[in-house]
C-alpha cells in the first residue's frame, strides 16, 4: 500500500491544485445537496456548518474563518449563489440579516484520497436532483 506523504493524495495537508476543491469545500457542497434533497434550497453559514457537523459526527462546528472563506471561494467559482435576505424579514424576527447561499448544480471536480472519493461520488449521485 502506498503511504508516502510525498504523494499528495496521501498527504492530509496537501496544497490546492488549480480548478479543484479542498475537503471543506466538498463538504459544503455535499451538505448543500443533502439539504436540497430535504427541500431546503437555500442555506446560511451556520446552517451549513451544523449540517456538516451532524453528517460527519464532529464535536465542534467549522471555524468561522474556514467556513466563510470556503463559501466565498465557492461563490466566486460559481458553485454557489449568495444573496442577502430581505431586511424586513430579519427585523420582524428580531435578528441580524442572513446571507443565503444556493447550490447552482454545477459539475463538481472532486479532490480527496482514494478512500473517500468513492463515498463522496456515491453521495452526490444519491442526493442529486
Amino acid at each position, binding site marked *: 500500500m502506498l503511504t508516502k506523504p510525498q504523494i499528495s493524495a496521501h498527504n492530509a495537508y496537501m496544497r490546492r491544485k488549480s480548478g479543484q476543491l479542498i475537503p471543506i469545500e466538498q463538504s459544503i457542497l455535499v451538505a448543500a445537496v443533502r439539504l436540497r434533497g430535504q427541500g431546503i434550497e437555500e442555506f446560511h453559514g451556520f446552517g451549513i456548518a451544523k449540517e456538516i457537523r451532524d453528517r460527519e459526527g464532529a464535536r465542534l*462546528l467549522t*471555524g*468561522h474563518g474556514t467556513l*466563510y472563506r470556503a463559501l466565498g471561494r465557492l461563490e466566486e467559482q460559481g458553485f454557489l449563489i449568495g444573496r442577502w435576505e430581505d431586511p424586513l424579514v430579519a427585523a420582524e424576527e428580531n435578528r441580524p440579516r442572513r*446571507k443565503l447561499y444556493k447550490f447552482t448544480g454545477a459539475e463538481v471536480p472532486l479532490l480527496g484520497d482514494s478512500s473517500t472519493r468513492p463515498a463522496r461520488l456515491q453521495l452526490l449521485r444519491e442526493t442529486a436532483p
Partner: protein
Amino acid sequence: MISSLLAAMLAGLVESLFCLLALYVARSLTLVWAWTYTVAVPEHLRAARRAEIRSDLHEQINQMRQEGDRSNIIAFHILGRMIWGLWDDVRWSAPYLPSTLAERLSRGSEIVGKARPSPLMVASLAMLGIMNLSFYMTDRTVPWFEWVYLNTMMPVVVLLLKNQQRQWVRRLFQLWVFLAIALVVTLMLWAVLEFRLYQMPQFYEFLLQAMLAASPMIVAIGVATKTVRTHVFRDKWWPVVVTWVIVGGASVATGVTVGGNFAILLGMTVETALLLVLTLGLVVTFGFGVKVICYAGIRVSAGCMRLAATGIRRLERST
C-alpha cells in the same frame, strides 16, 4: 443559617452571572477579531464579512440555547470556532492589506483620526503629572505594574468614550462597566457576610449616609447621559434643576435627621463630587496620548501584517 442561605443564593447568582459574562466576552472577542482582520479590506467585503459573523453568532447562540446548553458551554464553542478559523481569516484578508507606506498611513489616519489637543487636555496632563509625582514621593514601594495599570487604564477608557459610535466599542465599554459594578457589588456582599456587618447598627447608618451622599451624583450622571437627558428631562434645563433640588433637599433633610449632623453628609458629598470631577478630567486628558499611541500601534501592526501577507503570498505562489 440565614447567612448560609444568603451565601448559597449569592454563589448561585454569581455563577450564573459569570456564565453569562463568559458568553458575552466570547461573543465580543469574536466580533472584535472580525473587526480587526477586516479593517483593511474594501468596504463592501468588510461590511459583508462582519454582518455574516454577527448573524452566525446570533444563530449559534439561539440554536445552542434551544438545545439546553449553558452559557459557558456556548462561549467555549464560540471561542473554539474563532480560534480554529484564525489562520483562514488572516489568509482571506492578506491580499487586501496595504502594501505601500502611503496606503498604511492613510488607513491608519482613517481609523485613529486626527489628534487635536485642547487646553483642558494640557491642563489635565499637568495635573496627572503632579499626581504621579506626589504618589511617587509618598510611597516608593508601589510595584511597577500598579504604575502601568494606573496610567494606562484611563487612556483605554478615553479611547472607548471617544469611539462610542462603533458598536463593538459600546459593547466593550458596557462589558467594562458591568465587570466593575459586578466586582464592587460582589466584594461588598462578601464583606457584609464575612465580617457580619449586618449585625452592627452603625453599618446601616453609614450605608444610608453613603446613599444620600451619592444620590445627587446619580442625578448628575443621569444628566450627563444622553439617553436620560433626552427621554427623562426632554433636553430642558428646568426639570434637571427641579429634580436636583428635590433629591438634594431630601438627601440633606434625611441625612441631618438620621445623623444629627450635617457635616458628615456634606463631607461625603464633597468628596464624591471631587472624585467625579477628577475622574472626568483624567479621562479627557488621555485622549490625546491614546490617539498618538494607537496611531503608532496601527503603523507597527500594519507592518507586521504586511510581512505575514508577503510570506503567505510566497507560500501560495510556490504551490
